[in-house]
């Protein structure tokens, strides 16, 4: 698959979320951008067979083939449940200290996802989009 660059793109998209979480750790607010990203991730983590193909695109990078694969490879059911709970704590009104701790915990999960994407990028490197498949 022409996925090397897609996995690198995924790693960078994850990094963008991490940046936004770092701001929360440093005492900043939960930005609308972070809120959107967290909703996208949570929908992906809770993915069901009932969603439409079209709705995958609403999940941004996490609904693309590489995002779906990386999440399913990196997170087991328990991870998924914990990460959803952690992200909920970040977006819902909480005391600052608790929000900071949740953001830090979420960053650890996102670092894992980013490393998974970089690993996949390395494995698939060299793939391009030639006019022929052979």
């Amino acid at each position, binding site marked *: *698959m*022409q996925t090397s*660059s*897609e996995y*690198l*793109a995924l*790693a*960078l998209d994850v*990094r*963008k979320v*991490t940046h936004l979480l*770092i701001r929360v*750790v*440093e005492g900043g607010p939960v930005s609308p951008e972070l809120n959107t990203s967290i909703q996208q991730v949570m929908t*992906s983590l809770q*993915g069901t*067979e*009932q*969603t*439409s*193909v*079209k709705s*995958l*695109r609403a999940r941004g990078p996490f*609904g*693309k*083939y590489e*995002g*779906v*694969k990386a999440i*399913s490879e990196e997170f087991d059911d328990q991870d998924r449940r914990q990460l959803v709970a952690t992200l909920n704590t970040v977006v819902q009104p909480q005391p600052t200290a608790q929000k900071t701790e949740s953001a*830090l915990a979420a*960053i650890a999960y996102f*670092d894992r996802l*980013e*490393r998974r994407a*970089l690993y996949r*990028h*390395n494995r698939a490197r060299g793939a*391009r*989009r*030639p*006019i*022929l*498949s*052979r």
Partner: protein
Amino acid sequence: MFRLCSDLRPDYPVFSDESRDFFEHIQKLGDKTLKYLESAPNEILKASRLSSTRRQELLDLRYLWESLHEFLRPALDADSLHLPNSLIAALHDRIHETEEWRTYRFTLFHTAEANYLQLPLGMVGDRANDIAALVGAEQFPPGLGHVGIPYSQADGLFLNCTLAHEMAHFIYQRDISRDTENRIDDALDRMVEEIGSLDDDGKSLCQRLVGNWVQEVFCDLFAICLIGPAFSFAFSQLVSASMLIGTPNGVPESFYKFSTSHPAEISRFQYHRKLLAKLGWWKQVRNWSCGPVQVLKTCTQDRSAFSLELDEDLPEKVVPVRLLQCYDEVCNWMIREVPKRVKGCRDGIATFEVQSAVIAAYLQRAIVPSTIIMRGKVIHPKPVTVINAGYKFLFENLRDLLSSIEKEKPDSIESRSRLTGRLELWILKALEDHRLLTGGTVEQ
């Protein structure tokens, strides 16, 4: 890498403005990255609980630069002496006829593969912008695409007509993908409804597969709208499609296989023929006695032997034939839509009809057909006309030309190859002259 860009002389080698912009941007990005790295240790040590994630950012930066590294040297190798510049300029001019694409430009780089390719937006522009976001540099020049050409084809014409397809990838990724993706999703949702349900892995895999196949067909259709049947002929030569004709033991299976990234060649030719017929080109070329036209005739007959050869197994519930039906639905929609998007896709047909015989007469006398006289009127044939007339001459008249030259043998591969090279130079010169004489996009 930065030095390679900053040490470039302004006078030699000569690069296109697009390539210069690219090198200049890499140089600026490099300067900013060095500054970023100087301050990185302090940033990492500032907050111990964040130091791990901040260090990981350096890994991103490293991979980002690696992704640019791969294409810098090949781009530097592709100076103006090592590219078919007049063809590239003609393709730019054709693309720029459509108002919304006037800002799009392409840098070309050499590839060691005997293959043409386009670097997806996500491999250069977006990655450069990711670096810029990390290190605080300016954004990549918008509208700049990257296309790879085999280093051996630097002075060719015919095979290089496939560049139109590669340029189309950039336009698809920038402008077209959203409409097409909606169509793909609708088709796939109908399929999923029929089979009951499908998990996210399965859905995203189907979405990616059909997306990849559709994008390739879009680019083929776009290329035909841009330069007419010349693209299909070039593609036919590139994939050795003559194997599809007169093979006593059946045609090679590989032409029927859909891979993860590409549709089967037979399917691509079927859509080429459909579009050529729709545009009006087919009646111009259908009687040519040559392999590529024969291929287009042959490919309409059999659709039952398609198979999938994928990197990953399809979900059990998904039947290949049904998935291919989704692909066909979208491709048939594109046959209607692509000509609406590409301005001037029928313009070359009428001029080809009346001018190709005259152009052939000029080529028969080894005269570059940049200016021809018809009924006492001076005409500078348009690039699309010249390129397709060149192909017609290659297929139908080259033998006559060889027969008329002393010491050349019409059946000799060496003679044919040598004269084909000459023919390509004449056509490239005609394209260059057209630009000088008319300013590029001026219609004649």
